[in-house]
């Protein structure tokens, strides 16, 4: 399945992913980073998840290294810490972005709590150079209805001190996702989009559903296929990728 | 003519009644009761004015006074079981005051008491209401669980100084600060009675205890904690008072304070706390009348009595810092 039409909708150098806790931001950030790399861009991914210590993108640092993607995340003892460590490099990367074409992806912690870190750096984030994307999964708790989602969007915007520029519809149930799940929840995303006038940039779908969706006439919507990389140890990673040493 | 009725087998011969009687009506008998204690009798019956001081101070609910054919009733919130406390221990007095408050407010059918480790560990045998035993220091946490689960119940804890002010100080402060709608009765006798007279966080400077045989040294053990003063500085709690039960006047004030504390809870006003200065004749190594006197002369100056905070007026009393 061709990802290029979708990924090309991310025109600005900086992509920041926010959203409900557990909505799939990290996995999408990792996939976007790999797609940009396939387009031969310089890519930096910043792990800004100060909220939750498990299943963060710093886990697959070996894979980033192999693909020449720069990962900014705590190293050494702090790698595993459940401490809110904000690296000075994160600021540096963003400052540089003001004058560069490099692709920078920020994976931010969940909810308004996670988005607060953006507020602390708003002097180095240029709105004209940034896509602030809200990842939306209706199958997650507290994200079930339109009103609760809009409330969360406003809370995140308040904490980040920035406006959300687009949605990524990411309704999935992992391996158990069916095409119907995707289609029905896409409707809710469309409704949120209509009420907030924030566009849906694309619909992320788990890659094994890709064929089924394209064969049956597709979604009539830009699709971004997602491979899962940050996995529990009993699920095999996609071929060509290493199994992370642990889960945090 | 008024008459003092002594239930002699409940008596432990503490002599507090003989001591308190303003008219010298009572004296100790030469006989012993079934437990081996001397008990009081009316040596001078015609002098009795029916003032009921003896019944007020009796720590074993062993005295009733008949005045004009009327006898004061034992509170129904107490069981018939005799207390196990030492002769002259003030626990018995406070038990009775708590039970009287429960009766007066008519809350016996929805009261739940929590008694943690300490001399009052067996309080569940004495209060005629649902009771919880608790571990050392945790009564406010247990009470929190009961009250949050069943807000219609009237929940009280009955705690000593080691329990409340040492091992359970965190639970005490946080239950107060969360504004749990519970009533805390705090028995401060400046010693660990149950375990045999060790130093408490409230033991006075210079006071001898088995773990400070040379007297409490503030350089080693700090100064005794004034819990009422500590709690009144919190914004949340509603009612904080300190009372004593060494004489009739103070017992009546203590009775008022305890009843108020329960009444606030009945009215849905948060956290009420009554500290009761109490004597521990055994732990202090004194006879009961001397212990009451020692309390008045040594504890009261360091632990001033009064209402420190009320829901109506906020903080009402400043003490020496």
């Amino acid at each position, binding site marked *: 399945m061709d990802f290029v039409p979708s990924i090309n909708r991310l025109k600005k150098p900086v992509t920041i992913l926010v959203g409900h806790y557990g909505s799939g931001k990290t996995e999408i950030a990792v996939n976007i980073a790999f797609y940009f790399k396939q387009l031969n861009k310089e890519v930096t991914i910043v792990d800004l998840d100060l909220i939750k210590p498990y299943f963060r993108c710093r886990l697959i640092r070996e894979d980033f290294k192999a693909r020449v993607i720069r990962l900014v995340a705590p190293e050494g003892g702090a790698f*595993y810490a459940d401490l809110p460590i904000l690296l000075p490099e994160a600021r540096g990367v963003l400052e540089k972005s003001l004058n560069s074409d490099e692709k920078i992806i920020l994976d931010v912690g969940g909810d308004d709590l996670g988005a607060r870190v953006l507020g602390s750096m708003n002097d180095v984030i240029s709105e004209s150079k940034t896509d602030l994307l809200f990842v939306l999964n209706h199958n997650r708790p507290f994200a079930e209805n339109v009103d609760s989602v809009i409330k969360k969007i406003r809370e995140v915007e308040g904490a980040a001190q920035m406006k959300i520029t687009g949605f990524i519809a990411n309704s999935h149930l992992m391996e158990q996702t069916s095409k119907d799940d995707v289609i029905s929840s896409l409707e809710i995303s469309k409704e949120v989009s209509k009420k907030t006038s924030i566009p849906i940039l694309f619909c992320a779908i788990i890659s094994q559903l890709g064929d089924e969706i394209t064969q049956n006439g597709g979604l009539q919507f830009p699709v971004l296929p997602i491979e899962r990389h940050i996995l529990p140890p009993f699920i095999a990673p996609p071929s060509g990728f290493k199994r992370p040493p642990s889960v945090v | 003519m008024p008459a003092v009725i002594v239930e002699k087998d409940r008596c432990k011969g503490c002599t507090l009644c003989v001591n308190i009687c303003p008219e010298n009506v009572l004296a100790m008998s030469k006989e012993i009761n079934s437990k081996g204690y001397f008990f009081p009798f009316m040596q001078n019956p015609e002098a009795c004015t029916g003032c009921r001081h003896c019944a007020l101070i009796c720590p074993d609910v062993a005295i009733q006074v008949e005045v004009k054919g009327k006898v004061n009733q034992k509170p129904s919130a107490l069981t018939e079981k005799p207390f196990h406390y030492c002769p002259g221990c003030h626990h018995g007095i406070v038990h009775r005051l708590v039970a009287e408050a429960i009766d007066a407010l008519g809350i016996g*059918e929805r009261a739940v008491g929590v008694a943690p480790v300490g001399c009052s560990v067996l309080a569940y045998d004495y209060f*005629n209401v649902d009771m919880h035993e608790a571990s050392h220091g945790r009564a406010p946490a247990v009470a929190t669980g009961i009250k949050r689960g069943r807000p219609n119940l009237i929940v009280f804890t009955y705690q000593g100084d080691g329990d409340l002010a040492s091992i359970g100080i965190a639970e005490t402060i946080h239950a107060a600060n969360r504004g749990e709608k519970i009533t805390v009765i705090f028995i401060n006798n400046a010693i660990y009675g149950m375990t045999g007279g060790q130093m408490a966080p409230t033991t006075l400077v210079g006071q001898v205890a088995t773990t400070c045989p040379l007297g409490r040294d503030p350089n080693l053990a700090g100064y005794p904690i004034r819990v009422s003063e500590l709690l009144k500085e919190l914004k949340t709690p509603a009612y904080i008072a300190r009372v004593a039960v060494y004489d009739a006047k103070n017992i009546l004030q203590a009775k008022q304070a305890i009843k108020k504390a329960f009444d606030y809870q009945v009215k849905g006003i948060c956290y009420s706390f009554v500290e009761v200065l109490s004597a521990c004749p055994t732990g202090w190594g004194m006879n009961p009348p001397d212990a009451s006197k020692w309390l008045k002369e040594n504890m009261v100056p360091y632990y001033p009595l009064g209402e420190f905070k009320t829901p109506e007026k906020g903080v009402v009393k400043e003490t020496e810092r």
Partner: protein
Amino acid sequence: MAKKLMKGCEAIGEAAIKAGCRLFFGYPITPQNEIPEYMSARLPQVGGVYVQAESEVSASNMLYGAAGAGCRCFTSSSSPGISLMQEGISYIAGAELPVVFINIMRGGPGLGGILPSQSDYFQATKGGGHGDYRCLVLAPSTVQEAADLVQLAFDLADKYRNPVYVLGDGLIGQMMEPVEFKRTVNPEDLPEKTWASTGAKGRKPNIINSLYLDPEDLEKHNWKLKKKYEEMEKNEKRWEEFNIEENLDVLFVAYGTVARIAKTAIEDLRSKGVTAGLFRPITLYPFPGEALYSVAQKSKKVLVSELSTGQMIEDVRYHLGKDREVAFYGRVGGMVMTPEELVDEALKLLK
């Protein structure tokens, strides 16, 4: 009800609500903070109460109070916090009250680390606090099973008037999987607890107590508890058999996440021509020893794998007998074995 994508921690919280529980008392600790966070958001929506205690010691005593007042209630914590709760757990066991404890285990001893572990097996299954008591211990290996077992835990706690642990490693708590809640219990529909402290109206006062000063009474009480534990042993053993057949080359024995890693390893071993199977205890206390014994008779080798230096293996050895050789493979400190490690270990064993 439709499936939802949930973290193990969230599923545990929702399962408690679906079990009719409206009271949570707890204290934050990684990696289970999602449970108190979830409960603080969800309980007010259903008329419940969330209390953040001043410590785990206090939380376990709040549970002691609430359970004594006849309310379904639970808490969650992680290893060091569970250690602090042992005081309350011992009292709850002594006073025979129903409370559910969730332990999302992390590496120890001491402060240890925040990564997954199964090193609290002894603490959970052998008592944990002071005194002669046992807790039922349920060990889920999927998020769905975590939800199911939490609902079961509330029922078992009420049935036996006993504390019940749901013992998950950090992965169970942090992993996301789709979950479906199969039943919803309305708290009003739960049977009345006549022994609880609900106000002595029209009856004699109830006393919630674990103090027995007379040694004869305490001895009687202890034997009564023992009888109850025997009843639990008779009725509540649960386990899963995976790929069990006659003439196995190797039998894995594992619980929780490790059992799933073993399943992946078993598929791999089968592709290499090695017949491997798995015995997964679901209840760790009571331990399904007899079932394990009969399954183990079918296998040449037995390999126990845990995220510890070897705790469940003592129960395995006890049930399989002194003569049976039992191999062990463990990772600790938050390190998690990969399926490849287990494959290698099995092949080494068969050489």
